[in-house]
């Protein structure tokens, strides 16, 4: 079996799993307790917070542990809106955000906020000019993802940050779920950063929100004083310790690791572009970890199922039921040929994959296309 669905989730690192188990067995107290076991837990937690802060170049107090990027996105976006609605109710995001951002904005529209959705070009990147034009006095928040989860396009985060700070008083939120541990992040003009552990070989149910110290937000969940009241609930501190370790491991030799993935990506691009009726939706300017392509005239779920029979696990976002074709809103936003949005396949890579694995994948894909060709 060759697992090519790493943008959905990754295999948990053995060391993380073993350490998590050991840590839970040895230390189990509540990190908010005042007895020594609790204090030990708190020391672990503080050391983890410090490590994450130093890895990302932020202050210790700017790291909030959460259950993952979805929760971080909700806390940051809704929390900012509720805290700053007196200053304005205009929000900006992109058309191709993850649902954990997009649907938060949909909810805020119902609450009376005005949202501008930035369009993207055919490679899935927003226009900086458009962003600059759209910024207003009453814009309070801009949320832009670092790397798109379906097609791997990289947004110009640093430039966005600069434009936002130079032209408005808006806060800037970045959903870095597919960016972190794979590409460099400069926190200079970023007020909020969300990410999950499980996309970088960590545990599920683990993530963090980075919130700059000077930015005030309202809590969206109410309870105890944990995480400054922004994320109440007994601290899942052993998981948080593992997040610090996961992030450290992900950032180690990040550039070398990405260079290896780029080689794999280049090979896949070359081979895929040779196949008739295969259209690449990702570009070489995007993150090499995600390769998205569409098939003209082939139902992607049949191809995916055929690949699975050969042991290659990939993902399709366009599953069609008998009479309803589900389309990818991300691919629709690229404004390409209409069939592309309903026939896409996503291959997402990690370090364990070899070129030989991908040769097998290409071979399997060709075989399936050959077999079912002409039937549809």
């Amino acid at each position, binding site marked *: 079996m060759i697992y090519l669905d790493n943008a959905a989730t990754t295999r948990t690192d053995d060391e993380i799993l073993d350490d998590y188990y050991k840590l839970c067995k040895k230390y189990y107290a509540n990190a908010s307790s005042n007895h*020594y076991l609790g204090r030990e837990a708190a020391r*672990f937690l503080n050391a983890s917070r410090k490590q994450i802060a130093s890895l990302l170049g932020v202050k210790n107090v700017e790291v909030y542990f959460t259950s993952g990027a979805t929760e971080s996105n909700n806390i940051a976006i809704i929390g900012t809106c509720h805290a700053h609605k007196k200053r304005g109710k205009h929000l900006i995001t992109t058309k191709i955000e993850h649902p954990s951002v997009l649907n938060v904005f949909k909810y805020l529209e119902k609450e009376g906020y005005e949202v501008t959705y930035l369009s993207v070009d055919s490679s899935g990147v927003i226009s900086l000019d458009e962003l600059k034009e759209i910024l207003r006095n009453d814009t309070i928040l801009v949320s832009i993802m670092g790397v798109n989860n379906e097609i791997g396009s990289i947004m110009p985060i640093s430039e966005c940050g600069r434009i936002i700070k130079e032209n408005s008083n808006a806060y800037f939120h970045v959903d870095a779920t597919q960016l972190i541990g794979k590409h460099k992040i400069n926190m200079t003009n970023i007020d909020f950063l969300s990410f999950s552990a499980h996309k970088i070989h960590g545990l599920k149910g683990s993530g963090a929100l980075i919130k700059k110290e000077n930015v005030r937000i309202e809590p969206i969940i109410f309870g105890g004083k944990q995480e400054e009241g922004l994320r109440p609930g007994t601290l899942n501190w052993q998981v948080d310790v593992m997040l610090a370790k996961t992030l450290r491991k992900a950032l180690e030799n990040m550039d070398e690791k990405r260079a290896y993935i780029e080689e794999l990506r280049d090979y896949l691009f070359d081979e895929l572009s040779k196949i008739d009726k295969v259209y690449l939706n990702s570009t070489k300017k995007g993150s090499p970890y995600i390769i998205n392509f569409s098939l003209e005239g082939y139902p992607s779920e049949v191809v995916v199922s055929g690949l699975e029979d050969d042991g290659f696990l990939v993902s399709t976002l366009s599953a069609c039921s008998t009479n309803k074709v589900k389309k990818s809103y991300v691919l629709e936003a690229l404004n390409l040929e209409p069939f592309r949005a309903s026939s896409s396949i996503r291959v997402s890579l990690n370090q364990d994959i070899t070129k030989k694995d991908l040769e097998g994948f290409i071979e399997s894909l060709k075989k399936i296309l050959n077999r079912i060709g002409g039937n549809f």
Partner: protein
Amino acid sequence: MNYSHVVIRYGELGTKGKNKIDFINMLNKNIKNTFKDIKEIEVIKRHDRIYLVLNGADNNIIKERLMHIAGIQNFSFAKMVNNNLEEIKNESLRQASLIEKGTFKVVVKRADKTFPYHSDEVVRAIAGPILRNTEHKVDVHNPSFYLRVEIRRDGSFIFSEVIQGAGGFPLGVLGKVLMLTSGGLDSPVALYLMLRRGIKVEAIHFASPPYTSQEALIKVTDLLERFSDIQETIKLHVIPFTSLQEAIYRYCDESYAITIMRRMMYRISELIAKKHNCLALASGESIGQVASQTLESLQVINEVTSMPVIRPLATMDKLEIINTAKKIGTYDISIRPFIDCCTIFTPVNPVTKPRLEKARMFEERFDYMSYINECIENEEIIYIKKDSIDKDIEEFL
């Protein structure tokens, strides 16, 4: 920089005659103990030096730890080569070429008299290639760096930098004191200065639950843990002080409460010190800082004990103390907002010039000795160690 050894020099030890051997043995033991978790490091003792053989261990960690070991005057990271002029020349040139352009002086110590060249000849042999191959110039009076060569039986050590150590004496050779420890800013700094001199400490803390919280004690243990790199285990005597403190307030005038309280603390400390073989008491008092630390107050307070009371901060001002606390990493812990037994009962108008007769008069009003005995009977001893948790944290992260 590719060093193979650390050359460690003893300071004042050399002047101590027949005790010298004991001192060096203690220092050797302390150094070994400090590095027992770094398995690459070997400790080698010679009559006038201790060497660490690095075997690739992390220089920064070693430097940090050596700087806190009492009894080390200074130390240098060095590269050892064979006693061979060619090798000495090459290594000297290599080290010199890594240093930013400047002026230098070569200092050669020829301890191994079997080495066939005289010191002067070695100096010239080393300086020549450096002058020819780098932009450095010689300045024998005020050089920007020294290039030092020590030719010994074991080999020739080549180095440039000499790093100041903590000085003082090897921890343990001077005996032990009992340190009055509150959790404030001063006592940890005083404690550090004692340790740095090479004096072992036990700590005594007065707790007044429920007036003082458990957090106040946690503060003290956290503070003491800071010193676990210097003294592996610190014995902390926790004295339950509540009933005695309440009695003081019942029987004595409020303005004298702090004076009497301090007298009681010293009485208890003296008894504990004697029981645990401590040769002196120590405290963080700084003359004039608060009402109980005026010379008049200190005189009245000190009257209850015949033991020496060492006050390392006596003449330091608050700013100096704060800066030291920041440097040694106790500041952040000390400023945690929990009340200790000195602050909870602070009177509105404490007496700044207490009179001994008056203090005695108040004390005659109650049987304080029975309270003191009760305090001592109920003391709790906590052993503060660098716990395994620090290692665990490192490992799990």
